[in-house]
């Protein structure tokens, strides 16, 4: 195969493999998504704790939770676009719903970074969701 064809092949295959795409979800790939979700929820809880205690800035809370929320949404989209069978399919659906909730709560923090009562409630919810995601990843 000429060099140019090899380069084209690599350029086509690399982005496709990096995107993950739809298709069948392996246990390993599911675990990676669940761990990522656990991480995002746990980090969101840390940010919410700071907001609830008034030990951070509203700008930081708003900007950082926007990034975390987008990442949680990405996890949700990836899980929604994949298929699995048996027990893994059940776990996939639960993780997808969980990702949606985490993204939603991070979105609330992003929109109301100065609401300490809301932040207190969301910190607790996000911690629970981090625990749930950890169990799913096991």
């Amino acid at each position, binding site marked *: 195969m000429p060099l140019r064809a090899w380069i084209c092949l690599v350029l086509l295959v690399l982005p496709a493999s990096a995107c993950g795409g739809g298709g069948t979800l392996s246990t390993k790939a599911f675990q*990676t998504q669940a*761990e*990522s979700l*656990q*991480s995002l929820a*746990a*980090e969101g809880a*840390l*940010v919410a*704790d*700071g907001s609830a*205690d008034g*030990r*951070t*800035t509203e*700008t*930081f809370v*708003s*900007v*950082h939770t926007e*990034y*975390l929320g987008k*990442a949680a949404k990405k996890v949700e989209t990836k899980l929604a676009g994949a298929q699995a069978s048996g027990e893994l399919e059940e776990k996939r659906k639960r993780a997808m719903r969980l990702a949606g909730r985490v993204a939603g709560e991070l979105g609330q923090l992003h929109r109301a970074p100065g609401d300490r009562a809301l932040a207190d409630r969301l910190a607790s919810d996000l911690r629970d969701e*981090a625990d749930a995601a*950890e169990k799913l990843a096991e």
Partner: protein
Amino acid sequence: MKKVLQIALGILAAIGGFVDIGDLVFNVEAGAQFGYQLLWVVVVGVVGIIVYSEMCGRVAAVSKRAVFDAIRERLGFGVGFGALVSSQLVNLMTLAAEVGGVALVLQLLSGLPYRALIVLAILALAFVIWVSPFEWIERIFGYGGLALLVFAVGAIKLHPDWGSVGHGLVPHLSSSDHLVYAYFAVGLLGAAMTPYEVYFYSSGVVEEGWTPKDLGLNRANVMIGYGLGGFLSFALMITAGALFLPLGVEPQFIGTVALGAQVPLGTIGLILALVGILFAVGGAAIDTCFSGAYNLAQYFGWEWGKYRRPSGAPRFTIAWAILLVLALLIIMTGIDPVMLTEYAVIFSVVALPLTYIPILLVANDRSYMGRYANGRLANAFGLLYLVVILVVAVSAIPLMIITNQGQG
């Protein structure tokens, strides 16, 4: 007394200027994943950059030639060209990542749109480079970077298990995830031994007119400056190990790094962390930009120098301006600066032998260096690190692919 004060101020600036976006990303990610287990790699990396910089500084002081000048002169145009191209590519990736990092921190401080802040960051960097005397740039960004010491205070307040920290300083293999552990070890070495720092340092030695009489100063500068700078890397890794590892947080954002100071120290910790990151990454962006222009100018024999007015070294000035524009274009594509940093660090490890080997050969050449050529100790360290550098250079890309950039 004035000389001592000058050295002390220079060292302070070097400590603050040691950390760049690669150190921030890899130290925090490694701490969150492996706790304190990889602290020993920071020591290996810091000793490596001391060995490499000391040789480059000595070659520059004796021959009055910085890295690419010496490489081209001693090893010819062809060999040098490969090293130049690879170094410039890595340099540009690093510069783009640093610019993206500056914009992200500005966003965390101001809440303004990221893309507008990228443009603002580029304009601010160009303005600072154009109008500020170099000593001011070095000192302001170096001292501003000292705000990163907040991570040392934060690390103490997080009450890490100091026994485990001590154990982490002893080289050992991981009990699990061997390949991911190896990937982070390679990344930490790459982050500590970033080549642009060496190009920048050796060019400074030539510009400041150091002679063989200044070799003691050269040794003290690299040992104390980089040695103490490594302390900040420790602080970042310990903070991440104490805070993020137990919670399962995998840092993916610059904001996560700052969270490491906010949780133990509150708003003041957060602001100091963001300001420290801003100055450290901003200073590194300027150093990277200058390094790229130095490399081109030295290789092609143009007039160069940060102390010259733009009209005195026009091609050098155009080179750094073009590098800034290219960095702007890369980061405006929307590429994630953290991901770009990881690629830049891994590729810098791959390219490292291309400049390290020529410098080791030149520093060892008695016909060129005379009595200032490498002695036994310098050669022992030089050869030991040659083996380390070759091993990590060969394994870096396979490890990055196999471990999916450390995600397992």
